[in-house]
């Protein structure tokens, strides 16, 4: 006789006890179809002679014969049943309009497919004996709903039976991400940059649309990423009809009101401008997805207010940096995801517990993908004599000025001084001397000589322009806010395809999110951003799935300057993220608070606080 699988008797109140939001009346709902905790004994026994021996009172009178007789009574075995009805598979035929073919052909190599070639069917087979199963979220209370999900075929089978084709077989952790999103009304996919959040979201949407559980989806993303999403939809779900909201106000209004495609893409600015149409009570979306959802981290911002006003059934947020500065950032996102879940005064550990079932966060270290290593080099430079002198004068004068203005002092004044000093750390304004540039130039020589490509990040367009002038022999291209949106795809293509073009000069603002530049082997952070999370995003343009070589990241830092002071403050704050998301989370994502900014120059924040606010 083969052995049966064993199950443990789950401790009472294992998870319901943690929830105080379940009305006792609702508990009755839980009882539907649930199995009793007490077993039914065979025969008519109803009392216990001793442990494990159940004999009824009648048995004592009848003796052993009576016991034997009872055992042959047919027991009444209670069964619980549920009938499922098959959902309709929606027939969606891939569109083959010339535009979409062009979009597909132009699609740059993306996650996991550096060569961008080929397609794959998903076969309904387990990976290393493990299937990816849909698991009901905790807020799904009714047992029949929970069973409906648990009894669905594993994701591998669902993808295979939906006749969906993929550019390549998703990684196992990506299937986990899809299985996480699929059953959730509220979800934050917070994977580290480069793990394929875009593909996971698109595939989950695709599957839900095919299963007729979604009909209208709105995807909101930063403006520079609209074309990226179009490309990724063409690549991962070419059969899904798309509408992109763009054009003049009249056209946009027409699009908002008449778009009947399954997926509508809009950028945050458009959503802000067209709030009356987007938030119209009749404009219902089955799902609203916010990409780079740190855009709504400020719960009192207009962007947050508008996005959470969009009539919708499900709310998903995608971000690689759910916490940039403080736990408040996550609260801002949750005002959209599940308003009221996070209260203002919650401690980080409590926040971590509350959001655990809503947030899926994986880092590259946690997932077993074969990414080449990321090598960090800290290029600590000493300012040239000209820079050092200019820096000393500027700081002395600046601090004296800040102290003089006292009551008028605002955080903006401090920012201005910080930025001025950081610019001097890049180039001496009078002579153009730059210790950083000398080091960068030497490194780029080596990079170009080996036929590799490099990305240089700076926060200033002027700095990028100066670098371009000085580094012309490397045939650099620029990608920043002053490059028109329609030209940006061309810039990326030239960087990728032109073997003479070894360098792309990028601003953190325009280039740090959503781009796939895994063909670059070197990343230089010429100056440092306020927030390590933004730096991480920038680095992960190159170090992402599909990268075939190690990525060397050079972080410039001018010693004994404001850059070092900021670096030291941020270094001390790297623990916050780990407290909320667990010990293994490696991304540091805390910026500077106003107090810390004032403290950079040992200024008292007290008097300026009201003014600054």
């Amino acid at each position: 006789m083969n052995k049966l699988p064993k199950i443990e008797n789950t401790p009472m109140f294992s998870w319901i006890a943690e929830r105080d939001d379940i009305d006792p009346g609702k508990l009755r709902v839980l009882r539907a179809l649930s199995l009793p905790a007490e077993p039914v004994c065979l025969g008519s026994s109803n009392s216990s002679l001793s442990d494990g021996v159940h004999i009824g009172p009648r048995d004592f009178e009848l003796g052993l014969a009576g016991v034997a007789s009872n055992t042959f009574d047919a027991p009444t075995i209670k069964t619980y049943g549920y009938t499922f009805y098959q959902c309709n598979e929606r027939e969606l035929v891939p569109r083959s309009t010339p535009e979409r073919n062009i979009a597909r052909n132009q699609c740059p190599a993306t996650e996991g497919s550096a060569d961008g070639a080929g397609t794959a069917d998903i076969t309904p087979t387990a990976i290393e004996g493990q299937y990816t199963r849909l698991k009901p979220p905790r807020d799904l209370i009714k047992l029949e709903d929970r069973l409906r999900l648990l009894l669905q075929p594993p994701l591998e089978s669902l993808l295979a039976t939906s006749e969906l084709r993929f550019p390549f077989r998703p990684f196992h952790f990506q299937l986990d991400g899809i299985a996480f999103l699929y059953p959730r009304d509220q979800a934050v996919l917070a994977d580290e940059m480069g793990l394929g959040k875009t593909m996971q979201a698109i595939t989950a949407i695709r599957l839900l649309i095919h299963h007729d559980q979604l009909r209208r989806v709105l995807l909101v993303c930063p403006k520079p990423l609209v074309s990226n999403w179009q490309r990724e939809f063409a690549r991962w779900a070419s059969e899904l009809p798309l509408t992109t909201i763009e054009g003049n106000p009249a056209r946009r209004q027409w699009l908002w009101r008449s778009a009947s495609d399954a997926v509508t893409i809009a950028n945050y600015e458009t959503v802000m401008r067209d709030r009356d149409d987007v938030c119209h009570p009749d404009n219902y979306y089955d799902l609203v997805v916010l990409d780079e959802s740190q855009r709504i981290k400020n719960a009192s911002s207009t962007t947050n207010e508008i996005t959470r006003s969009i009539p919708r059934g499900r709310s998903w947020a995608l971000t690689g940096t759910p916490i940039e500065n403080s736990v408040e950032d996550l609260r801002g996102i949750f005002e959209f995801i599940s308003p009221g879940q996070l209260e203002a005064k919650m401690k980080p550990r409590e926040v971590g517990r509350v959001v655990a079932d809503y947030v899926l966060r994986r880092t590259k270290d946690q997932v077993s993908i074969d990414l080449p290593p990321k090598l960090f080099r800290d290029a600590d430079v000493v300012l040239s004599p000209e820079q050092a002198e200019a820096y000393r004068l500027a700081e002395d004068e600046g601090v004296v000025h800040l102290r003089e203005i006292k009551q008028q002092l605002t955080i903006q004044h401090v920012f201005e001084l910080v930025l001025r000093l950081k610019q001097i750390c890049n180039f001496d304004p009078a002579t153009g001397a730059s210790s950083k540039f000398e080091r960068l130039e030497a490194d780029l020589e080596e990079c170009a000589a080996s036929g590799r490509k490099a990305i240089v990040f700076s926060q200033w367009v002027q700095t990028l322009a100066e670098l371009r002038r000085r580094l012309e022999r490397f045939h650099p291209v620029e990608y920043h806010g002053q490059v028109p949106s329609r030209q940006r795809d061309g810039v990326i293509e030239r960087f990728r395809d032109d073997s003479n073009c070894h360098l792309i000069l990028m601003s953190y603002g325009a280039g740090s999110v959503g781009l796939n530049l895994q063909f670059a082997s070197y990343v230089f952070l010429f100056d440092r951003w306020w927030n390590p999370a933004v730096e991480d995003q920038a680095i992960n343009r190159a170090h992402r799935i599909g990268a075939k070589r190690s990525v060397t990241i050079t972080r410039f830092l001018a010693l004994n300057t404001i850059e070092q002071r900021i670096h030291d403050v941020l270094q001390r704050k790297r623990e916050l993220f780990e407290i909320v998301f667990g010990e293994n989370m490696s991304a540091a994502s805390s910026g500077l608070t106003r107090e810390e900014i004032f403290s950079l120059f040992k200024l008292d924040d007290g008097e300026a606080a009201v003014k600054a606010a």
Partner: protein
Amino acid sequence: MFSHFAAANVIPHRWAYWSSMSQQARCNEPAFGYLSAVESADLGYFGGYLIVSQLGRPLEFHCSAPIRPNRAQQILYGPTLESYLLGEQIGSSLLRAAKITPKVIFTDSEGLLHARELIGVPMALVLPADRPASRLTRSHISLEAIKLHIPLGYEQDETPIASSLDLIMRRVDLAEPFGRIHEAIREAQRIGSVSNEAHEQAA
């Protein structure tokens, strides 16, 4: 204005798409049954019966309340207790409860194979290919990683079983649905435990 919105606005809650299918005719496609059982040290035996479409989608699910033999029964039935409990009691109760008649019923438990005597549907015991044949079976169908064992006395089932496999095997790993049954029983038992306890407290 907003005419399409009005139509969209009637879209109901997320799972309602599936539930709304209740108004539609039931699917006439071939169905396959999966009969399994799990054992709990504290509570005894649970049975589960899942009927799936040829795409592997669930059509019906039935599970039994836990059943525990008493000491006298254990002594009297001896080694045949499990087949009595699983095949004649749990298996037959679950099969009787189902509305859909599948083309084949697969089981992963020898004890449940006894249910074949109570129904007119071919049954097969699904075992890993490297597991020795059961003494309750004689013929088998070899597939890649598994073997389908046909119960003794029902060798004529081999042909209809073999001809049904084409319908399901391309889309479904034949052994996979048993895992779903075990998960569902665990969930039903888990929720049952906590809800019973919580209900008593609430009362």
